[in-house]
């Protein structure tokens, strides 16, 4: 397949992920959108790795995945803690830290 296929696919996934982060108020969905953006980046890593016939891209995907796992674990724990305190997970309700 031509490279542009992966490029377009990745750009589309990334843009949709951005939209999800900006427009959704449920933090769980926001997290999922973040994962979507990670995936868009990963896809490009792997595609370019194959294009240049170098393995380093694959390894970077590996690191991104572990970091994303860690981030999700902490983020979800935060969600649980916030839900306990405020009894809601609406992002717009968490606006006490403002000027």
């Amino acid at each position: 397949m031509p490279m542009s296929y992966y490029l377009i696919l990745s750009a589309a996934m990334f843009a949709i992920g951005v939209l999800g982060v900006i427009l959704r108020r449920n933090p769980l969905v926001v997290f999922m959108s973040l994962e979507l953006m990670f995936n868009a980046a990963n896809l490009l890593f792997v595609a370019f790795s194959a294009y240049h016939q170098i393995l380093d891209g694959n390894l970077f995907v590996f690191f991104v995945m572990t970091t994303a796992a860690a981030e999700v674990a902490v983020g979800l724990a935060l969600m649980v803690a916030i839900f306990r305190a405020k009894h809601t997970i609406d992002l717009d309700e968490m606006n006490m830290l403002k000027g």
Partner: protein
Amino acid sequence: MDIGVLLVYGILGLTVIVSAIGLIVSRNALYSALFLVVNFVAVGLLYLALGAPFIAFAQVTVYAGSIMVLFIFVIMLLGAENLPLTEPLRGQRALGILLVVIFLAEIVLYYLLRTTPLQAIPLTPQSLASPAEIGMILFNRYLLPFEVTAFILLGATIGAIVLSKHEGPTRPKPGIQKPETPVEG
């Protein structure tokens, strides 16, 4: 190019896009999670097609498997809360969509104006992306980042435990003894 191959790639790409859109438009978070699983699996298939079987299986087991289980577990824990659809932030929706469209347009522009045309992706030889080869590189050239990643995971584990630990108001902290329960030696 073979029409069958084109068909497979077209369906895969469509699945990726549609599941992504489904993820962000579903009102129910559980549906979003399921759409994400579909997305992950489709992307994993693309990895396979790119000759990266190790990453593909890691994608399926780590993302589609464990991380999604975590997501669904938390959704169950917190209740699948349905938030109202109205947008409280004025202009957020329009501005966001506008910016994303500009963003995409710019990327396309950049691709057209600034880069040399790319060839087709060559087929990856079996030996190149084998798990053995990845393991060699991972534990030689990328040993330090690997170890750092291990610490990040450890930190995340501890952080998650600390954050979600329920601190009851009645349980006294160790070390702070109430005066009516003196400790006699």
